């Protein structure tokens, strides 16, 4: 599900003079700042939320919800650290609220105290590289996998969710367990590759 909100009142009529340019410039600056902060915060927010709701679709919705709250209320004038802190605080509320809506038989969830302490551990992580470097390294590593391996990773982490893996299992005649085992090996390969890539960039 996509979320959107109007930045300006749609019924606002703007004069065609310099005021328009000033207003547009201010919004553009704010937007640019938000985009920069959000791109940096998004993986941490997602990881933090995943402590509470590990499911892909619900997790996507929660991430979007946090983004919209952060746009409306996030501190954009105090630097990226404060922005992330605020976003994680929002994420805790949104993640906990999402858990309450999930039927117990639909999704395995960690006990609330465990989920909370795991989220706290996510918040204190201090990765060796920034998110854009990590994602870039991951993309390069994925690019070195075979076409089949890349397809499997895309099916698991693309927008089609777990149903795509079930479809792949049906199509390839392999059991879903076999695919998950292959996935686990691939994640190990990618983790090693990213570590090498970040420590010894080519």
């Amino acid at each position, binding site marked *: 599900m*996509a979320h959107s909100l109007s930045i300006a009142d749609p019924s606002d009529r703007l004069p065609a003079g310099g005021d328009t340019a000033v207003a547009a410039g201010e919004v553009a600056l704010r937007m640019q700042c938000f985009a920069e902060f959000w791109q940096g915060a998004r993986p941490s927010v997602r*990881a933090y939320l995943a402590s509470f709701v590990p499911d892909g679709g619900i997790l996507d919705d929660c991430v979007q919800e946090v983004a919209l709250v952060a746009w409306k209320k996030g501190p954009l004038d105090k630097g990226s650290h404060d922005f992330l802190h605020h976003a994680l605080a929002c994420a805790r509320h949104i993640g906990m609220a999402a858990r309450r809506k999930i039927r117990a038989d639909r999704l395995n969830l960690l006990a609330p105290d465990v989920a909370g302490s795991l989220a706290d551990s996510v918040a204190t992580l201090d990765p060796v590289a920034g998110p854009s470097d990590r994602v870039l390294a991951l993309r390069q590593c994925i690019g070195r996998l075979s076409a089949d391996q890349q397809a499997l990773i895309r099916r698991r*982490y693309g927008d089609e969710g777990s149903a795509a893996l079930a479809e792949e299992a049906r199509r390839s005649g392999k059991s879903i367990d076999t695919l998950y085992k292959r996935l686990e090996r691939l994640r190990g390969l990618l983790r090693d590759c990213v570590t090498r890539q970040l420590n010894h960039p080519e």
Partner: protein
Amino acid sequence: MNPAPLKSPDGDEASALFARFLDQRLDDAGMQRLEQLLRDDPDARGRCAEQLLFEADLKDAVDPGELEWLETRQVVLGKKDGLPSLEIRRNQELRVGPRATPKAVEPPKPPALRRYLWLGGALAAAAAGWLWFRGPHPAAPVLKNPGFETTDLSLNPTGNTYALIEWQDYFSTPNAELCEPGRVTGGKIFAKSGRNVARLLTGGHLTQRLHDENGMPVPARSGARYVLSGWLHTDGTGPHVLRTALRVVASGRPAMIQYEAVHQKLDITPQPGWQPFLIEFNLPDDLQRTPSDVTVPERPLLDLEGRELTLSIDSRGHEGSVLYLDDLSLERNDP
């Protein structure tokens, strides 16, 4: 079942259990053991936190979350006090997520009397539209965002986005994107018109629910004929194949069920620059179909007559080939 003891490739039980948990494949005993480890062992908790961050990075690498700022402007030229006037209405929208329907600029509210007249007119139009919808003649489709210019990429730092407004109805794919070709190809290719084009990698596709000029869905009618035209540009790696179809989407993913009313395949000969293409769709008399694309075991037969049509344009060329599309049009082709 979770064979015990469970170890990841580097021998870490908590990480192995946690990976299974993230894939939602952990049984009750495994959950209890994982929770115990996460409660008692701060190191294990730290490793699982790193796993969560890695998963988030992986998601971002494969399916980047989109953050899009859409600005539309409506310029009204008129007269005020006998003098020429210019009024600009601006609508800005922040979008977070894979896709969305653009929010239109709302017109000012009419006065009460005019509102009732407008309502009466709207009802009459709706009734006429309904009669037309139910009638034997297929409605003429009007493609939305045919030139891909709805999105302003000027503030986008990379010149591309996976959000293809109006072209991801029901389905989206990371193999299709909107881009400013001049920027993403370093000046090798420019749009046929405007600034943006659709860029399809192999397996990429565009889908749009068909509407007529009144916004009513275009239903499948036996004997109806349509012509899809536009411009395409290949990257020369070929062979390039464009597979197009008019479909009825009974259900989107995950339980996908699609029925194809008609399809056409176009083998493209790579040549320098933009080349026009034209594809004819002739719906046959018999529109009874079994599903063409499904992710569920059921394959129910369906009469497509009167059901809402969707246009799909798929790139089915050689692995790694890239195709650019611009200025598309779909018209009724009455005999």
